[in-house]
């Protein structure tokens, strides 16, 4: 299934605003992050485990154990700093 990945802030500057990726049905956001890490050295650096990366699916904050939804918009971004 296809998901649209979006990046914000420092991740957007390094990886671009968005990309599409194919994932097996039943994958989690964590598995998506692993697939992205494996896709290029730059992704590996920016999304490395141990780095503070937050995520959302279809514009709702969620944990990485969340199951991906077909056609979803998934976002990865640094901790938020508004206000």
């Amino acid at each position, binding site marked *: 299934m296809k998901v649209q990945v979006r990046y*914000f802030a420092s991740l957007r500057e390094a990886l671009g605003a968005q990309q599409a990726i194919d994932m097996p049905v039943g994958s989690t956001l964590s598995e998506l992050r692993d697939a992205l890490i494996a896709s290029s050295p730059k992704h590996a650096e920016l999304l490395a485990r141990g780095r503070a990366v937050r995520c959302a699916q279809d514009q709702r*904050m969620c944990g990485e154990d969340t199951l991906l939804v077909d056609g979803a918009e998934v976002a990865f971004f640094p901790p938020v700093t508004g206000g």
Partner: protein
Amino acid sequence: MRERVSVRPADFDLSEEVAALRAHDGGVGAVVAFVGTVRDHSGGQSLRAMELEHYPGMTEAAIEAMIDEACKRFDIRGARVVHRVGVLQPCDQIVLVAVSSAHRGQAFQACEFLMDYLKTQAPFWKKESGAQGSRWVDARSSDDAALERWGLRSANAA
């Protein structure tokens, strides 16, 4: 009725916002407003500009959900949040949270609750520019601690 949330580059007028919030509501006996502004220094260095990025759609929805939560927890009559995005200069206004209620206690609490919530749960990111170049602002664990006072766990900065 006026929308509760506005995320935009344009500045806001505190008097006008407060007037709109309590217009035609004779039950209002208190309005508490918080305004966040851009400091001219950060970490001992002078700051030339601050750029704010957001996640269009999600940011507005997240703040709407926060206001819903505030309405459940506190006896308030109205709330309005304006958050600016784009490039801001030192001394510019960044954010307004205004809450109306019958008595001051609930308005003070709801206003602080909304700011604590917004700091750690609304998708905004700040980038500071100074003489030494630009850098993305790090999240603070003290902001997570502030939200936890309200019984909500936050692991934004962790």
